[in-house]
């Protein structure tokens, strides 16, 4: 091989390696710039942190926020995620698996769900979705209900709040008339 041929071979080899580095860096850089390092499932929020209500208007919207607040409150009390608790409450079998996994008994679960319902009532009151005159007796009531009923209140918050409205609404009107 003559010296000039040797140089040509060396140059081609050098160019090939340099081009490989450049192309690889461009590809990886482009993918990172397009969000490649953050293409992951979204992080779930700590249930103990407050989750602001987004000005609900209809009963359905209030029930929606109420459910989320109740689940947040109960999950915070149990030290689990709101999402794990939601799936646990879906079926009796899921609930049993959840209790076994986290070493929770019925009493502790009931206590947590009641605490969650209290937080939901607090949040609803703070957002102006529930009158203080209704919130106070409601808070007292949910702290005495059995586990199955507490779960039902979370699962069907709309009926729960609808019933509350139909039962306590007239009472509130009466109270508002007599109170200064």
């Amino acid at each position, binding site marked *: 091989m003559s010296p000039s041929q040797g140089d040509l*071979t*060396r140059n*081609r*080899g*050098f160019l*090939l*390696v340099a*081009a*490989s*580095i450049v*192309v*690889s*860096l461009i*590809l*990886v850089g482009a*993918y*990172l710039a*397009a*969000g*490649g*390092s953050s*293409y*992951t*499932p*979204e*992080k*779930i*929020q700590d249930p103990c942190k407050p989750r602001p209500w987004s000005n609900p208007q209809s009963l*359905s*919207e209030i*029930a*929606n926020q109420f*459910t*989320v607040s109740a*689940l947040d409150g109960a999950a915070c009390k149990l030290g689990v*995620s*709101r*999402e*794990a608790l*939601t*799936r646990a*409450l*879906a*079926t009796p079998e*899921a609930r049993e698996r959840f209790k076994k996994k986290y070493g929770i008994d019925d009493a502790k679960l009931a206590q947590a769900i009641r605490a969650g319902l209290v937080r939901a009532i607090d949040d609803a009151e703070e957002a102006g979705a529930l009158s203080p005159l209704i919130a106070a007796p409601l808070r007292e009531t949910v702290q005495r209900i059995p586990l199955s009923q507490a779960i039902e209140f979370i*699962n*069907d*918050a*709309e009926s729960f709040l609808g019933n509350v409205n139909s039962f306590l609404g007239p009472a509130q009107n009466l109270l508002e008339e007599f109170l200064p």
Partner: protein
Amino acid sequence: MAALALAVGVVLADSSIVVLALPDIYRELNTSVSGVTWVLVSFNLVMALAAVPAALIARRVGPGRAAAVGLAVFAGAGLACGLADSLSTLIVARCIQALGGAAAVTAALELLPATVGSEQRATTIWAAAGATGAALGPALGGILTELVSWQSIFLLQVPVALAAAVPILAVAKHEAATGIVSTELRRTGRPHIWANLALAMVSAAIAAALFLLVLLLIEGWRLSPIEAALVVTAMPLAAVLGGRLAALVSDARPRAAAGAILVSGGLAGLAFLPKATIALTIPPQILVGIGLALVLSALTETALGGRAPQAIHGGWTISARHAGVVIGLLLLTPIFTHEIDQQRHDAINAGTAVILDSPVNPLLKLGLAEKVSERLEEEKGKVPTIGPAFEPLPDDPGERAEVKQLQGELQDQLDRGATHAFSTSFILAALLGLIALFPIALSKEVEL
């Protein structure tokens, strides 16, 4: 020559041909991801262990006889693989297939120089046939799995291997009649340590690229085997381009280095996919394809260059390549199975959060959360298909639109989880490719 190239191609394709069939084997034989990995690992492990002894035997009994018997064993074991009804039977048959394959491939390298006229040309043809087989394997396997069944991959190998064996039988008969073993028994030189070490590392990275990408496409993004086969065809097509590029640079060391860098760059690209979209897998695959063509041929030529006997040193390269595949699979499988589980958990939590935070009627969304929860139980250990959880869709058009949007958002979370689950493994595979640069740098002596 065609029969010998076919023999090498069909045996080395077997190293990767089942990659796209693994999800079907996984489901049909009711095994785990780690279990099904052994369908690949067993073949490559036995090839790695048997290649050099098989080359020695081929030189003792005659390469013609070794190749013919090897192909017959390969075909018989392929039939057993196709008829296997349990994972253990399949793995045992794969081991026997690898024994036959090792004999056939190494003996072919001993027979080729007499057929094509020179050792240099024989090496090039042998390396090209092996690279073509390995690169085309996954696509062929995917097409057969979808159009027929995973068993057909092995059953089809039977006539192909026998067809390759028929012309070689003439050489075997000649050896038996004359008692002449065509190769002189020269003293075996030391194998090229650095080239073989680099070959092992690069093979680990390439195996990971194929295996992980196929799993991502089929199990993560729920593509059918034939769709996945079409997608991964980008790699062998790019390898053809890489082969042409290799012809422009005669020095093996820069070719090997450039190839290793491109393989690593492509793998890093796959690790940082910004979206679960097929199109985005193509540029990284092109890099891996060009890279594998450059690096495999350069390192094989370096390992064989000026060394004799060819069959033994060819055996060492086969051994290094398949050992690399085994190391890659055994190193990365536990990592990505753990990651899949973790990401699945994160994706489900994120998906449940999406459901809870949606404006859908509370009763409806808690019902959806329940159904999604049931799907998770049914598909434990896999990336779940959540479509059925959303059926039947509500009658109300407004609610229907909300539920459909919710389904899309939940699917997005699952796609994110499935894609991210492979990131760590792709990064580690890319690192293996980069580490190969050290032995490549140390293989100063390019003996062509």
